[in-house]
C-alpha cells in the first residue's frame, strides 16, 4: 500500500477521535443524524422520549434489523418513560433505570457510531455530554446445525453458526474454565467487524497470542466480511500451497485445540473458527480419530494416510511405471494395458491430464450446480468420464480406474485446504514423473518434504513434532490410547506441558 493512502487514513481517524459529545442534546442528535444521512437513510431509527423520573428529554438511536426491538421497548423505552418516584434520589441515574444486560457511557462520537453499527442502542439525555450505549444487538442467523464439511459418525453433531455469541456458547459449553479468555478486536476501516481471540490463559503461549493479535491489528483493509478473508490476511505464506491456519466448523475440535494451548479466532457472522498455530497433523486429523476407540481410530488414520498418498501420487506413479519402468508391471497387466492403449491417440501423460482435468471439472461443477440438478451431473459425468471415453478410444480403461481411485482418495482428505494442496501438487508430480520417471517423483518428494519441513505456522514448524522432534503425545500418524496422552504437544510451546499425571507403570515418554 502506498504511503499516501496510509497518511490519509490516519488523518481521518484523528479527526474522528477528537470529536467529543456536546453538552446539547439537539446538537448531538443532529450530528448523529447527519453522519447516518438520517431522513434519507431509513436504516437509522430515531425516537424522542421524555424521561419522567428526571424530567429530561432523551433521544434513542439504533439501526433497524441489528437491534432487538422487543428488548429496546422493554428495557429502554418502557423504564425511561415510567414514573419511578419511589426510587431514592441518588439512585435516579440512567444506568439504574435502563434494564439491560450491558450498558456503557461513551463520550466520543466515533465510539457511539461504532456501537450503533454493532447493533447497540444509544440513549442521549438532555444536558449530558455522554451517551449511553445499551447492548441490544440481535442479528438473524441459523440455528445450530450439523457440520457440513466435517462429518463424523461418532461424536458431537454441532457445528458453528454465523453468530459469535452462539459460537462462544458452543465453545464454553465444552470448556468450563475460568482461564478461557475471549479478547475482542475490531478490524476494518469502513465496515467494522469484531474478531474474538480465544485462548486459555495459563496454557497458550503468550508470544503466540501476541503474534496473533499483532497480525490482526496490522491488517489494513476496508472491510473484512468473513473469517475466510481474515484467514488470508493473517496466514504465513500467501503464495504457498501449504495452509498455515486450520479452518474448522466443529466446536469440539476447537475446544480440544484450546486445551493443547492453541489459539482460536472467531468472527461475528462467520460459521467457522480459525485455529493456530497448526501443524500438518492438525490438518490431517479429524475429531473422529479420537472419538473412535483406539484401534478403530488408528485404522481410519491409516486409511486416510494411504488415501493421501494415493491422491497425490497414483497418476504420476502410473506415468512413471508405464513410460519409464515398464519392467515393474506384472507381465499380464502390462500386456493388458498395452493392448488397450494401442488405439489411444495420445501419449499417456496427455491422457492422464485430460482425465484428471475432467475429474476436477466434474468436481467443481458438482459444487456450483444448483442442488435440484445435482444428481444429473453424477450420471452425465460418470458416463462421459468412464464408458464413453473408453469406447471412443480417447482413454484406456486402466486410466479410468486410476483417475477414479485418485478422485475417491482425494475425497477422504478431511481438510479443505489440505485437499487443495494435494490436488494441485498432484499435477506438479505428474509433470515431474512424465519427464524423468521415478527420478522425477523422488526429486519432487525431496523438494516437497524439505519445503514442508521449513514451513512454519506462527513460529511452529509445520511437521512438528516429527521433524523437528518434540516431546508430545505421539498424536501424529497414529495415536496412543487416550489415557496415555498425558503430555501436551511441546511444539505449541504451552505454558504447562503436563495434561495429567503420568499413567502409573505405563509410560510413553
Amino acid at each position, binding site marked *: 500500500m502506498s504511503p499516501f493512502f496510509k497518511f490519509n487514513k490516519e488523518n481521518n481517524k484523528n479527526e474522528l477521535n477528537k470529536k467529543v459529545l456536546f453538552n446539547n442534546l439537539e446538537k448531538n442528535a443532529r450530528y448523529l443524524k447527519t453522519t447516518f444521512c438520517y431522513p434519507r437513510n431509513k436504516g437509522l431509527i430515531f425516537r424522542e422520549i421524555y424521561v419522567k423520573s428526571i424530567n429530561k428529554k432523551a433521544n434513542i438511536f439504533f439501526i433497524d434489523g441489528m437491534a432487538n426491538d422487543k428488548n429496546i421497548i422493554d428495557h429502554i423505552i418502557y423504564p425511561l418513560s415510567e414514573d419511578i418516584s419511589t426510587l431514592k434520589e441518588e439512585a435516579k441515574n440512567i444506568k439504574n433505570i435502563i434494564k439491560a444486560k450491558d450498558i456503557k457511557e461513551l463520550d466520543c462520537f466515533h465510539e457511539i457510531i461504532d456501537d450503533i453499527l454493532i447493533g447497540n442502542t444509544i440513549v442521549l439525555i438532555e444536558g449530558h455530554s455522554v451517551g449511553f450505549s445499551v447492548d441490544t444487538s440481535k442479528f438473524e442467523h441459523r440455528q445450530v446445525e450439523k457440520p457440513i464439511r466435517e462429518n463424523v459418525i461418532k461424536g458431537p453433531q454441532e457445528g458453528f453458526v454465523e453468530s459469535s455469541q452462539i459460537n462462544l456458547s458452543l465453545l464454553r459449553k465444552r470448556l468450563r474454565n475460568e482461564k478461557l479468555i475471549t479478547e475482542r478486536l475490531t478490524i476494518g476501516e469502513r465496515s467494522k467487524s469484531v474478531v474474538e481471540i480465544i485462548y486459555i490463559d495459563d496454557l497458550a503461549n503468550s508470544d503466540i497470542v501476541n503474534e496473533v493479535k499483532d497480525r490482526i491489528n496490522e491488517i489494513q483493509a476496508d472491510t473484512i466480511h468473513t473469517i475466510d478473508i481474515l484467514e488470508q490476511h493473517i496466514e504465513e505464506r500467501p*503464495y504457498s500451497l501449504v495452509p498455515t491456519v486450520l479452518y474448522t466448523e466443529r466446536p469440539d475440535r476447537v475446544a480440544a485445540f484450546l486445551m493443547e494451548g492453541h489459539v482460536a479466532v472467531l468472527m461475528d457472522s462467520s460459521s467457522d473458527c480459525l485455529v493456530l498455530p497448526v501443524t500438518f497433523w492438525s490438518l490431517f486429523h479429524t475429531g473422529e480419530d479420537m472419538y473412535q476407540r483406539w484401534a478403530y481410530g488408528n485404522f481410519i488414520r491409516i486409511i486416510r494416510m494411504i488415501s493421501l498418498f494415493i491422491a497425490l501420487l497414483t497418476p504420476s506413479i502410473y506415468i512413471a511405471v*508405464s*513410460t*519409464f519402468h*515398464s*519392467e515393474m508391471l506384472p*507381465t*499380464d497387466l*502390462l*500386456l*493388458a*494395458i*498395452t*493392448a*488397450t*492403449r*494401442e*488405439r*489411444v491417440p495420445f*501419449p*499417456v*501423460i496427455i491422457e492422464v491430464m485430460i482425465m484428471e482435468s475432467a475429474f476436477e471439472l466434474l468436481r467443481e461443477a458438482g459444487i456450483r450446480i444448483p442442488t435440484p440438478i445435482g444428481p444429473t451431473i453424477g450420471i452425465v459425468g460418470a458416463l462421459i468420464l468412464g464408458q464413453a471415453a473408453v469406447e471412443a478410444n480417447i482413454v484406456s*480403461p486402466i486410466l479410468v480406474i486410476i483417475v477414479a481411485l485418485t478422485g475417491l482418495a482425494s475425497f477422504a482428505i478431511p481438510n479443505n485446504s489440505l485437499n487443495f494442496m494435494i490436488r494441485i501438487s498432484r499435477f*506438479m508430480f505428474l*509433470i*515431474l514423473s*512424465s*519427464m524423468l*520417471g521415478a527420478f522425477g517423483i523422488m526429486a519432487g518428494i525431496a523438494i516437497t518434504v524439505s519445503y514442508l519441513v521449513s514451513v512454519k505456522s506462527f513460529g511452529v514448524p509445520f511437521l512438528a513434532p516429527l521433524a523437528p522432534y518434540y516431546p508430545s503425545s505421539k498424536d501424529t500418524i497414529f495415536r496412543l490410547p487416550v489415557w496415555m496422552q498425558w503430555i501436551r504437544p511441546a511444539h505449541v510451546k504451552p505454558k504447562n506441558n503436563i495434561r495429567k499425571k503420568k499413567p502409573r507403570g505405563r509410560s510413553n515418554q
Partner: protein
Amino acid sequence: MRFLKMSLLLILSLFLTGCWDALELEEQAYVVAVGMDLGEGDNYYITYQIGNPQVGSSDRANAEREPASEIITVLAPDKISARELANVSVSRRVTFSHAKTFIISEELAKSEKFLEVFEAVTRDPQIKRQMDIIISKERAEDFIRNNNPVLETRPHKNYELMDERWKASGLVPASTINRFLQREEEDAGGFLAIYATIGKTDTKANGMEDKYKAGEVDKTGGNTLQMIGAAVIKEGRMIGTINGEENRLTLLLRPHTEATSWYATYPDPYKKEKHLTARILRQGKPKIKVDVSQSKPIITVEAPVKMQILLMRSFIDYVDDQEKQKFLTKAIEGYLNEASMVLVKKAQNELKVDIFQWSLSARKEFLTIPEFEDYNWIDKFPQADVRVNFKVQITNFGKQLKPININKIKE
C-alpha cells in the same frame, strides 16, 4: 516473483515432456523368450518370441485372428544387435524387460561359444539375472516355434507357470542366469540347467515316474513339450545330462535348493514288484561335512527327508505296525543311499564335476580365498570319498488308516 519463476519452469518442463527415455507401452514389443542357436561364422541365430498384447485381453475382439505371439529369427552377432535387426519386420522397439526364459540349443551349449553368450547378458541393463536358462535338445528356434501350450493363451504365462511347477516338482533344477554366472565365476563346480525338448525321441517304459530324460516320457496329447532332467555344464560347456530322478537326488543333497516337496515312487520292501508313492518333503538343510585335511576330500552328507506315504499298491498294513514301518523306513533310506551313491559315482567318474554344490560347504573349511583356490576343488572332487546317509522320517500315511482288504474283496 518466485511463484512466477516456478510456474515458468513448470510450463517449460511441459514442453520437454516426451523426450529422451520416455517410451509409451504400445511402442514396445515385449520379448517373452529368447532362443539362441549356432550360426555361421561369428553369428548366432537369435529367436525372439514376442507376446501379442491383444491376445487374451479385453481387446481380443479387435484382433481375432492374430496369433498369441510373433516369433522372429534373425542371424546376428549378438543378442543386443539382433534387437535392432528384428526391427526390419517388427514396428515396435524390442524390449527384454519382460523376458522370462532364455533357451539355448544343446549344440550351442556344447560349443566353445556358450560363455560368450552371457557376456551380453551381464552388460545389458534390461536383461534380468533372474531369467531361466533352458537347454533344448533341438534347435532353440524349433523349440520356441513348436511349443504350443493349450491352457495358456499367452506365451509368457506358460513360462511363468512352468517356472513355478519346476520349483515344486524337482524334476528339473532351478536354473537362473544369476546362479549360472555364480557357478562359472566360482569355478569350483558344475551347473545344472533345465533340459527340455519338443516331442518324443526314444521312449522308455521303466516303471518309475522320474527316471526319464527330456523326450523319453511316453506321453500323448497336449503340448509336445517335455521338460525333465538337467544338462550338466562344466567350465562353460555342456558335458552331459542327468535324468529326473538324479536331478531330484541332487536337489536333496545340495546345501540349498528351492524345490521343497514332490511325489516320488519307491519299491515296496515287502513286495518288490509293487510300488509305494510318497510325497517327499525336504526337511531343513542337509548336514554336509567336508574334510579337506587330506589330499582327498572326505564328504559326509546327512540328508533329512520327511515322507508322506500316499499310495501303497501292495496293500500291506504299515499304519498299525511299528516294526513294518521301521523296516519300510530303512528300506527307503537304503534305496535313496544306494541311488545317490550311483549318482555320485556318475558325477565323479563320468561327468567329473561337482553338481551337488558341495564346494560351497568346502569353502567353510578355508580361511582365505587363495587357500581355497589352491586346493582346486574342481580337480579334487572326482577323487573325493563321499558318504551319503539319508534320514527318512515317515510322517503320515494319507487319510486312510488301513489299506483295503484286497483278499476279502476278491473272495
